[in-house]
């Protein structure tokens, strides 16, 4: 390595600084996605419009209604139209759920300690419907408990590591994986393809610089940017969204560096396949971004995928990186727990580097 790679590094930073699209991908996109996942795509539902049809109108039925209005999840309104027409509430989007309390509610409850109410839920969005049903069950359980009714067994749902089911806990690690992949694989492969396309690559290759020096000079700026970006996301996640860091910060950063190395080597491999920016972009999207998004466990759990996709997920670097980062952040894993993941990433990175340096000379 010589001091001659400095001009390349400096030049690459100028390209980044002057290219609006690159700046957006590096700075605006991660923060935008973080806040989008953090706020807009909140898995917790509040203020569900619940319309109550109380045909009983007794102290007991009013106690039940109070139980619902006491929950932060529900906004109650009372309906006094015809029961046969409650369906129109859904059409008008006036309600997301309707609670029907039958006329014999208090009597039955007094006589048998047991009765039923009917809950109609707008099922047009099945996830939302599922959530509403869960919240309603919770309210009913509390109601029963307050009345001293004990169920034959305890239903208790305990979510380990993320008791409040905060969506940011799930998304932040995936987001780090996605952004690092985007900068390292997509931006570098496009940057190299651009130099081939404009002919400047040929111009530097004819200089006394060795190909390895050229590549190193080109990727160092992206390593720096990717690492800073990862750090930025993690800091915002930790201090703004209060995602915990239960394990070692160094272990997590070490994992991130290793993952950047893998993503960069993948980017180099892509750049040896692509002679122009369009192709590089397409290949990078298909070979690195999509698998990171769809097959790594970022959004869909690997365990519930069809067998073939599970196999593919094993060659997606993000699959291992997610285990590292989720393990360290949320579970407090130590190196012992995740060294297999480190080994898998290191093996992939070495393999990609080997293939791409072999191919790099041939294609230029």
């Amino acid at each position, binding site marked *: 390595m010589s001091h001659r790679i400095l001009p390349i590094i*400096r*030049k690459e930073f*100028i390209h980044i600084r002057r290219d609006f699209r690159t700046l957006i991908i590096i700075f605006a996109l991660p923060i935008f996605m973080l806040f989008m996942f953090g706020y807009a795509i909140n898995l917790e539902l509040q203020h569900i419009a619940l319309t109550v049809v109380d045909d009983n109108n007794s102290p007991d039925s009013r106690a039940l209604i109070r139980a619902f209005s006491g929950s932060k999840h529900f906004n109650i309104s009372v309906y006094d139209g015809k029961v046969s027409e409650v369906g129109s509430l859904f059409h008008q989007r006036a309600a997301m759920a309707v609670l029907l309390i039958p006329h014999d509610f208090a009597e039955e409850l007094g006589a048998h300690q047991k009765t039923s109410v009917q809950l109609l839920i707008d099922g047009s969005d099945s996830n939302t419907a599922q959530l509403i049903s869960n919240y309603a069950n919770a309210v009913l359980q509390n109601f029963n408990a307050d009345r001293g009714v004990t169920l034959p067994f305890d239903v208790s749902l305990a979510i380990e590591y993320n008791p409040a089911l905060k969506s940011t806990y799930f998304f932040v690690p995936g987001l780090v994986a996605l952004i690092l992949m985007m900068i390292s694989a997509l931006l570098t492969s496009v940057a190299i393809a651009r130099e081939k396309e404009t002919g400047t690559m040929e*111009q530097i290759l*004819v200089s*006394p610089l060795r190909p390895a020096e050229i590549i190193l000079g080109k990727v160092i700026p992206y390593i720096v940017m990717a690492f800073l970006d990862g750090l930025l996301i993690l800091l915002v996640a930790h201090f703004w969204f209060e995602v915990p860091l239960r394990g070692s910060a160094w272990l997590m950063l070490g994992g991130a560096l290793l993952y950047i190395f893998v993503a960069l080597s993948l980017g180099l491999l892509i750049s040896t396949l692509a002679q122009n920016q369009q192709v590089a972009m397409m290949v990078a999207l298909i070979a690195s971004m999509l698998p990171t998004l769809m097959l790594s466990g970022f959004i869909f759990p690997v365990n519930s995928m069809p067998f073939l996709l599970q196999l593919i997920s094993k060659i997606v670097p993000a699959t291992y990186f997610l285990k590292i980062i989720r393990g360290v952040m949320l579970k407090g894993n130590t190196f012992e727990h995740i060294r297999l993941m480190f080994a898998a990433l290191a093996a992939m990175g070495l393999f990609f580097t080997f293939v791409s340096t072999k191919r790099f000379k041939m294609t230029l």
Partner: protein
Amino acid sequence: MPDFAVFTENLGKFFGGFQAVKNLNLAVEYGEIFGFLGANGAGKTTAIRMLCGLLMPSSGSGAVAGFDIFKQGEKIKRHIGYMSQKFSLYEDLTIEENIEFYGGVYGLARPQLLAKRQDLLQDLGLSQQASTLTHDLPLGYKQRLALGCALLHDPKIVFLDEPTGGVDPEARRNFWNLIHAMAEQGKTVFVTTHYMDEAEYCNRVSIMYQGEIIALDRPEALKKQYGQTSMQDVFIHLVDR
């Protein structure tokens, strides 16, 4: 091996089963302006790339500045300047940033680089526009700037692949003045072109056709040999027969 700037013996290049360059035999003297002519796809760029160490030849042998093109590519690179037929400047860098980049890549020391930068900007008459983006320069200026960047390390031999493509006659004349000035400084200039009038300015020219050299001599000698009045006619006579 005799002392030539460029010397090849039966140099050839295959791309798969297709032979782009066949048995190239050249002996270019130091200080010569050597015109490398040929129609589209004749194999000129391929030949130049082999001489500059960008492509491994498939057969034959060759030397540039006395160094073997198979084994001493690194040494050759220090002694040659090259301007590729595609454009070779960074459009999103300013004029001075381009100069500094290429100077840096060739390992010029800082004071030397600054002096060169000043000279080049002055020669181009661009001292006031040093921090303009290269993108905004007229093509003729870009080509002269690209040449300047290729010459920062003061190479003995300069390969120019279609340096005047697409510019107006005035800019071409300016460019050829630079080429002559280089030759007067003792540099060897190896230049390809599509413009036959430019061939007249060369000391010697070769005409390449489908990977082979079909004629090689001084322009006057070629005109005389084929009974034509211009290089344009010589070229048409040779290629169309």
